[in-house]
Structures are given as structure tokens and as C-alpha cells.
């Protein structure tokens, strides 16, 4: 983008208040630190895990071996496909519904008032508590698990989206009106761009909750997917094999968050420009 390249370098801009802020790292340094932190955790785990009973903790090299085994015999692939289906469906429906309802509630006082108490009540009730009812309604299949993930995802998205629409600068609404903007153009020019950072924040929170939702659903409905792998291997004292799905979930979380951050950087480019 030309705007970013024509700016003076950070060192040429006045210091002062800015110097007390977090200093931004060069990309190379940031990657080095990220890798160092993971390596430190793995090394500590390897040293400590190797010194105690492998049933209690196991260690990274054993987990790596188990990982290869489980990829070879297809158990991991099968479980991952099952979990990702639930995750993807639940997240997609939850995100779409959360954004749509959130936009409506942000723009219309009537819808906001109608939704306020039910949403707050449902948000306060742990989704786990609802699982027996959901099973009663939807059985034990993929639908039930998707509904559980959906319930984990929708609220942070909905609440953040509503907030984003509410935060629209009233002066800019006035500007749009004074230039005779239609409601449709108002959404394109003003409401969506200003709500977008809030929506992305909601989605980021929702990713973490969706992963929790998947495992919870797999534990409490019918055992399947990565949740089943964790539970079954733990019962059989196959600790290394138990850690494989846990590490996979952790990696999923990191990758999904990174992808969303990338999307955000693309979409909210104007914000990343130094002020």
C-alpha cells in the first residue's frame, strides 16, 4: 500500500508519549522469540517427563512417536476429520448467526430490547448445562455436537457485533445523512467498516470457545473425534497417545487465531497505519 510506504520511518517521528508504548519487534525477532518459548516448554517437559513414570506425564519425544503411529494407523486422521466437521459447522453457523443478529440488535433498539434478557440469560448458563436437553432434542449424532459448538460460539460474536454497531461515530452518521446516504450505503460506508474490528475480536474469542465446545460435546454426548481419543487413551494409560490430540487441538487454536489475525490485518488496513 502506498500509504504505508510513503510514511516517515518510525525513528523520524517524534518520540515522547510513543516511547513509553510497547516497542514493536522486527518480524525476525518475533519469530525467534516464538520458537524459543515453544522450545523451552518442550525441553522442560522432556527433561521432567523423562524422569518420572511415563503413565503420569510422558514426554515430547514419546508423544512425537505416538503421533506418527496414530497418523499411520489412521486413528488421528479419522478423529480429526470428525472433530473438524463439528468445529467447522458449529463455528460457521454460530458466527453467521452471531454477526447477523448482532448487526440487527445494534441497529434496532426494538430488537435489542427483545434480545437483551434471553441473550444474557443464555450467555450466563454454561452451555454444558444444556447438553442433556440438546441430546434429548437432537440425539447423539453430529447435529447435537454442532449445536453445542454453536452455543459456545454465538454469544461472544453476537455481543461484540452489537457493541461494534453501537460504537459507530454519531457524527459520521450525521455526515452520511447530510450527503443523502441511503440505508444500504450507510451500512457499506459506515456501519460495517466501523463494526469490523469488533466482529473480528468476537470471532477470535469464539475460536477458543469453539475448541472447548467440540471436546465438551464429544465427552458428553457420544464419544467421538479428538475427545474420544483423549478419553479412551487416558483410560488405557496410553499417556503419550493421549497427549497427541491435545497437542493437535492446541495447534489448531494457534493456527486459527493466526489466520484470523491475517484476515483482520487485510480487512482493517487503515487502522494499522501509524497515527
Amino acid at each position, binding site marked *: 500500500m502506498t500509504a504505508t510506504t510513503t510514511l516517515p520511518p518510525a525513528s523520524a517521528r517524534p518520540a515522547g508519549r510513543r516511547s513509553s508504548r510497547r516497542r514493536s519487534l522486527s518480524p525476525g525477532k518475533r519469530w525467534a522469540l516464538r520458537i524459543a518459548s515453544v522450545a523451552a516448554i518442550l525441553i522442560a517437559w522432556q527433561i521432567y517427563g523423562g524422569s518420572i513414570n511415563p503413565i503420569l506425564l510422558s514426554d515430547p519425544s514419546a508423544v512425537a512417536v505416538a503421533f506418527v503411529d496414530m497418523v499411520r494407523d489412521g486413528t488421528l486422521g479419522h478423529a480429526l476429520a470428525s472433530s473438524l466437521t463439528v468445529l467447522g459447522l458449529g463455528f460457521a453457523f454460530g458466527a453467521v448467526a452471531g454477526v447477523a443478529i448482532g448487526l440487527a440488535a445494534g441497529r434496532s433498539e426494538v430488537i435489542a430490547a427483545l434480545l437483551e434478557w434471553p441473550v444474557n440469560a443464555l450467555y450466563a448458563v454454561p452451555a454444558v448445562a444444556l447438553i442433556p436437553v440438546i441430546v434429548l432434542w437432537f440425539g447423539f449424532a453430529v447435529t447435537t455436537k454442532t449445536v453445542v459448538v454453536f452455543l459456545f460460539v454465538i454469544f461472544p460474536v453476537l455481543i461484540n457485533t452489537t457493541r461494534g454497531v453501537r460504537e459507530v461515530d454519531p457524527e*459520521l452518521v450525521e455526515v452520511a445523512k447530510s*450527503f*443523502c446516504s441511503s440505508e444500504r450505503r450507510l451500512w457499506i460506508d459506515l456501519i460495517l467498516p466501523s463494526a469490523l474490528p469488533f466482529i473480528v475480536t468476537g470471532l477470535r474469542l469464539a475460536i477458543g470457545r469453539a475448541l472447548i465446545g467440540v471436546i465438551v460435546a464429544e465427552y458428553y454426548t457420544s464419544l467421538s473425534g479428538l475427545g474420544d481419543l483423549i478419553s479412551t487413551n487416558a483410560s488405557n494409560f496410553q499417556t503419550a497417545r493421549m497427549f497427541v490430540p491435545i497437542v493437535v487441538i492446541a495447534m489448531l487454536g494457534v493456527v486459527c487465531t493466526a489466520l484470523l489475525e491475517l484476515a483482520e490485518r487485510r480487512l482493517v488496513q487503515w487502522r494499522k497505519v501509524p497515527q
Partner: protein
Amino acid sequence: MPPPHLVLDDVCVEIGGKRILEDVSLSIAEREFVCVIGTSGGGKTTLLRTVAGLLPATSGAVTLAGAPVTGPSPRTAMVFQHFGLFPWKTVRANIAYGLRVQGRPVDPDLVRRLLATLKLGAVADYYPSQLSGGMKQRVGIARALAAEPDVLLLDEPFSALDAITRESLQNEVLRLWEGNAAMTALQVTHDIDEALLMADRVVVVSGPPGRITFELKVDLPRPRDSQAIRAHEDYPGMRKLLWDSLNTPGPLEAPGTVPETAPGTVPETALERVPEAAPARVRPGTAPLAEGI
């Protein structure tokens, strides 16, 4: 005198049951520059928003070129006090905003010309957050001009700028308006010098509720310039008249002492108060009132 272009006829505005503007009658000729001046909270911005069609008049009527103003119109364009730029649009996109949103074709030549005139060429692809206040308001002005309005509305357009930037931008807007053959302008300000620099006629609004308490025709020669105008012999007298009318609103706005045709009679009172300060050329209240048309 050209026919009246923008007419406010006995306009009252109430917001939440509170009366903000009362019986405001004002008639602005085509290509006239009128400044509304008053203290904060006096209702002058409400007056401008009503003219822009952003606020409905509770009673009375606003007409633009004979047609009643019932909502925002593409024939008016507004410059905002706090710039009102879209942070996610570049300078270029902000300038084209009015045209886009009204479904009118965006002439790249027009945009280029405005970028050049307002010295924005070098920052055409910047986002507003990268600009200084003065630059932001240049964008705000360019956006309003791009819409090629019949009436330019300016809501304290320079009040958020530092003194030096303010003066140079005042001069630039003045030149733009003086060089434009067809544009009527209505500006709100709380700065007497700014009003005298820009306007053909200054209208004092005091409130609440806001009423027109004084009018002053500023027949200083054009083209004007902020430095030259202050040296004009009539300038100090006009300045004092406005200053007095702003500072002693008490008897003027007290109910009962102001007849229904307030703007026509009030200047007499003002002149009586400061007879020696009023130069011969100052003829307050000479502009036609809505009732008189």
C-alpha cells in the same frame, strides 16, 4: 439584489420538548455569504442543521430555491466542525464520498482539481489518521465542494484548528468562494473576525432559545484578505457593534422587549447604545426579512 435563495420563515425548533430556536426568519440571496454568530449553546448549530435538513423545524418553514426543505438535499453540502472524515477511506475516497453516495458519476478531473486546489495532491492516498487537523479540514472542504452544492454549509469549520492554520484556511475558503460564480454560503462561527472576513452579512443568534437579535451588512470590498480587511476604516466599528450585540444580549432577548419583528428593530437599540462607534456605512438590518418578501 438577486432573488432570495434560501429562506427561513418563522422557524422554531424543539428538541426533546426544549425550545432551541424561536421564530427565526432569515432570507439569503443567491451567491450571498452569511455568517451566523453567537455564543455556544445559543442554537446556531441547530439553525445550520435545520437548514441542512438534518433536523425538522417544529414550526415554520425552510425553503431552498422555492422548494421546502424536508430532509437532506444534494443541493446543500456541509463542512463539519470535527471534519467528519471516514477513517477507513483515503483522502481521495473521502472527497468522492458525496458523489458516490448520491449515485453521481465521479469525475476524476474534478477530484484531481480539488486535490490540487486544496493542496492535497501529495496525500491523496493517505488515510485521515495520517493527516494534521488543517489537512483533514481541507479534505472536508474538498468533499463538500466535490458535490457542487448550491448552498455550502459550514459548521464552525475552523474552530478545531490552531490560529495559524485557521487564518490561512479562512483565506483559502474565501478565495474559493469568491472565485465560484454560483455558490451561496451559510457559515456558523463564534469568531467575530472570521465572520467579518467571510460574510456579506452577519446574523447574531442569542439564546436559548435562539433568536436573531442583530443583523449587520458587511459591505467591505472583495476580494478580501484577513490582513487587509483589518486595516479598513469601517472594521473597528463593525467589530464593536458585533461585540456589543454578543455581550449585552440581556435586554435584547428578554421576552416582551423584543417585538415580533425583532431583527428589524433591535439594531436601532444597538446603535443607540454605541452611537459613536457606528460608522456611517454600517446599516444593520438592511437585508430583507422573510416576512417582507
